[in-house]
């Protein structure tokens, strides 16, 4: 079954992901097992803050991890609408209203810390969407050692080793 979604456009394909891992894991053979689509709520805010010399305004892009509720500011990106196998899509765990609240708090926090001012910025949502980021799951094999897996960010090529699932409890991951 195919699912339609808004994917962040990226340039890291399957082969590139394998090459990246091969370049840092000499002696191992990387082979892509799957591509998973990870959910984020994206908000583009117009953010205005008052200063001694008038009001400043700028656009801030914020992504809320729809699984963990962790917020992050983001570079500009392009979206493309694609159809992908439904089994490769990770579903969000929070709704958009909650994500909006978290995004506003996170952006206000960032603005205060970066602008070095105890201000409450005025935030206006210009655009918002549920977007997905592709992650390649790469299995690495070696004749004399146990296998391990790595996930590769399909947008930036950043990677992170994966471990067998651990018995995780409930962290306070929300902002």
């Amino acid at each position, binding site marked *: 079954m195919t699912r339609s979604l808004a994917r962040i456009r990226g340039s890291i394909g399957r082969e590139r992901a394998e090459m990246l891992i091969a370049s840092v894991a000499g002696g191992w053979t990387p082979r892509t097992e799957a591509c998973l689509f*990870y959910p984020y709520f994206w908000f583009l805010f117009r953010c205005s803050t008052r*200063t001694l010399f008038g009001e400043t305004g700028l656009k801030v892009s914020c992504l809320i991890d729809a699984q963990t509720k962790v917020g992050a*500011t*983001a570079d*500009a990106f392009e979206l493309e609408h694609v159809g992908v196998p439904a089994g490769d899509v*990770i579903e969000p765990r929070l709704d958009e209203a909650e994500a909006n609240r978290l995004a506003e708090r996170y952006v206000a926090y960032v603005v205060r810390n970066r602008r070095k001012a*105890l201000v409450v910025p005025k935030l206006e949502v210009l655009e918002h969407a549920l977007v997905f980021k592709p992650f390649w799951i790469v299995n690495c094999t070696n004749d004399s050692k146990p296998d391990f897996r790595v996930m590769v960010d399909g947008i930036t090529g950043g990677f992170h080793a994966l471990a067998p699932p651990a018995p995780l409890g409930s962290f*306070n991951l929300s*902002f």
Partner: protein
Amino acid sequence: MNTTVILFLVLYYMVMVGVGVWAMRRGASDDLEGYLLGGRNVGPMVTALTLQSTSMSGYMFLGAGSLAYTQGYWAFWYAAGDIGGGVLNLSVIGRRMRKLSRMMGSLTAIEYLENRYPSPATRLIAASLSVFLLSAYVLAQFIAGGKGMALITGLPYSVALLIALAVIIVYTFLGGYLAVAYTDFFQSLIMIVGVAWVLGAALIHVGGLSAANAAIAEIDPTLLSVWGKDLGYHGQWGIVVGAVLVFSIGLMGWPHVVTRHMAMKQPTTARRAGAYATAWNLLFVSSPYLVGVLAIIILPNLEDPEMAIFQVAYTLLPAAVTGIVMAAIMAAIMSTADSLLLQTGSIASRDLYERFINPKASDREMVMVSRGLVFAIGVAGYVIALVQPPAVFDVVIFATSILSSAFAPAFVCAVWWKKANTPGAIASMVTGASTSFVWEVGNLADATTLAPVTVGLLASTLIIIVVSLATQSISPVPGHIVAVLEETAKVGPIPKHLLSASDFALSPEAEQIESILGQRREER
């Protein structure tokens, strides 16, 4: 008061305001501000310079110079700790702590401590200590700002202090920084060039370092030793260890702020910026101490040793340059004070008010609480700085000693020792802070030849080990934390090169994907 100095001082501020207004007019499409707000790097050199300006506080310009002026080369024990601090910090806890705090979703050091040592008491103690000690550190910046302003303008200290304090608080409340990315870079550049210029001018004036040392030997040969004036610290290793530890370990105790940015390109800037910043530090940290030593010859009868660097600049540099350099130094002091106030206010509102008093507090309410605290610190700071101003050096050492004694073992054990538990961490923070405090206030260092930080660190380290082991059965480390610690320390078959090149910003996603893949495997 020198008119040319004042003229260039005013000119400097006008240029800074002009840069800010120009940047503001460019409006929302301004990409550089966007970079800054996002925490993105604007290039390794710019990032390194901006980092440098944050570390250049009132201590560097008043405390370091004063210590070197009064104690000679003994002061370099502190410089050694400062230089080694960053490296030690990064190597001992840096990588693991970054990864662990990302996995636990902690944005501040206090949140991180509570997530690792789960208990409201952890946050209450850590936040209260931070608010108190950061306030003390801010006081040092107030005094530095007041003294600097008095020297530049010729105004009485009480008036200069009031002006400096008012400017700092107004900036904190309203956001005086119109374009932080531009002004920070510009300011850092002038400051670094300025301090290098002061050092160069001082070295030329005294005929080089060898000539300077010969001249100091004639004044007082003990100033050339590493044991202080009149060999006052000879053989007192407890004090020497404290001098080195106070900044090296002290850095670990500072509450930090983490913001998360998701880049859409492969980020390569951060590592190079870190390398540049370390290189700058190596080059720069010892400069104020060296100027302080040279001031012994240039200004042998200085009334207030804390003014050593300011006075050397005032004496040796052309008036126009002095104005610009002093303005940049003042701006750096104010910028540090501003950041510290912001942090103190945020800890009070977020970690104390919202967490323990009003969990449903709105963003506006929290900002009001922060502003209230900042105003109170300002008033209290003015009174203390006016009635009985302590030396900048003493205040900084006081705050840093207690911070490191309280927090360093808890931070180190958080990532390196799976058995470190909540009772152990709480007992360690309380014992470290109180031991160091009693040692400072009771002036026990002279009698025992042990610095407060040495004793405080020993006590807090011992306590975290003893209490954690003694309470393992009644308060074991929760399973999910042990699992995350094992994940943090994970090496297994994974090549080291791959691990070191990993992007820790992806840790929360990795944790979720691991869990989802595991579930799918079980379903099959």
